[in-house]
């Protein structure tokens, strides 16, 4: 015995008017950006703690790094991590080295001016409401840049340029997120073909592939790959993500 829409008791005009008063319910303009900032730092905190210590903490000092992130302001931290994978370099540039003492030593680290990157890492960060590009450029920067540019040009070729990897995977990620699993899988195949077995982000690509397979209905295959990954990489930050996939 289920109710149908037409069997519901009718509203009177007065009741309708009462309900209509809620039509103007709307968050204040600052609510969304503030929530975004809070949620982003929550994600970073969770992410930082979940990744292997060596990867991000330059020797394992997770809490020092997070404290640093707070001091810099979350948004700058995002930019640094997304682009460079490390905060030490950013600190020297953004704050003119005044926080250098708080950063654990990480061997020879040089700040470079790479050629302008048109790839998503910059785009991704600036898409956020609190755009990094709005940050004022640090005072001492012009001099150091000129000094290192010559050296930078010589050595840029020798550096692994992650921007292209990130751009390639970004396409797959976007496709997956909007449900275009075929496009996602195709993008991932292209990534494998272009960057090969030693691709810098091959693990990320592999996990994306598993998610795409799951989403496209190839559950058995996705599960098998997920289980194998978890077995072989028990400490990986992706384990949680894959476990959630397996649970569905």
């Amino acid at each position, binding site marked *: 015995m*289920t*109710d*149908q*829409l037409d*069997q*519901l*008791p009718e509203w009177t005009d*007065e*009741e309708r008017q*009462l*309900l209509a*008063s809620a039509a*103007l*319910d*709307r*968050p*204040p303009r600052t*609510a*969304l950006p503030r*929530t975004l900032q*809070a*949620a*982003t730092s929550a*994600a*970073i*905190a*969770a*992410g930082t703690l979940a*990744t*292997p210590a*060596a990867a991000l903490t330059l020797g394992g000092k997770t809490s020092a790094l997070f404290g640093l992130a707070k001091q810099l302001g979350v948004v700058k931290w*995002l930019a640094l*991590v*997304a*682009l*460079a*994978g*490390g905060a030490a370099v950013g600190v020297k*540039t953004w704050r003119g080295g005044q926080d250098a003492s708080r950063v654990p030593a990480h061997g*020879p*680290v040089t700040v470079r001016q*790479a050629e*302008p990157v048109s790839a998503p890492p*910059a785009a*991704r*960060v*600036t898409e*956020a409401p609190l755009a*990094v*590009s709005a940050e004022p450029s640090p005072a001492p920067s012009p001099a150091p840049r000129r000094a290192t540019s010559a050296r930078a040009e010589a050595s840029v070729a020798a550096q*692994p340029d*992650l*921007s292209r*990897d990130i751009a390639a*995977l970004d396409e797959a990620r976007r496709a997956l997120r909007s449900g275009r699993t075929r496009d996602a899988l195709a993008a991932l195949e292209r990534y494998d073909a272009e960057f090969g077995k030693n691709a*810098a*982000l091959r693990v990320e690509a592999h996990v994306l592939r598993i*998610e795409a397979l799951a*989403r496209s209905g190839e559950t058995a295959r996705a599960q098998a790959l997920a289980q194998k990954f978890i077995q072989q990489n028990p400490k990986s930050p992706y384990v949680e993500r894959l476990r*959630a996939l397996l649970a569905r």
Partner: protein
Amino acid sequence: MTAHHLERPLPSESVAAAFLADQNERVTDLVQSHHHFIWRLLRRLGVRESNVDDAAQQVFCVAARRLGDIAPGSERSFLFGTALRVAADSERAHHRHEQLTEALDDNAGSFPSPEEALEARRRRELLDEVLSALPLELRTVLVLFELEQLGKREIAELLAIPEGTAMSRLRRARLEFKACAKRILLRAAHGKVSP
């Protein structure tokens, strides 16, 4: 916007960087896609006006910390569930029938006259009172159907109940709302009569 590259990023660093960048993107998508809905929901479920912003932040922070548990596509369900819990907690923690302060809100400019703005404000307060008189379960379906104007299937999915159950709940909600509204509007009308 310049890019800085570390001299020799370790493979695990690049994976971690991509991982974090991915988290960041998911969080941004999450907030931009669902913030308004969750904010309105919290407001209408009865969280005090002055606490709604914080409650919404709380919901999204929970989601941000548990991104790994949220399968792509089920973001709204997760946020909805979290918002319900936050609203229920808020109800337990605070008195229900608080007078709303006459805060200057963004909507003040949408009315042709201050009298109309005031009238709308008063009506909104009355609505709050009626909604707060409903049990949370009924209040939720009513808000989703009447105010958010979601379809019965969407509501059933969000609440993880059969459509039939959602509809009978909605029916009860309407009846309960009518009874409470009658009582509260009558009281309000009597309050306006000068001695």
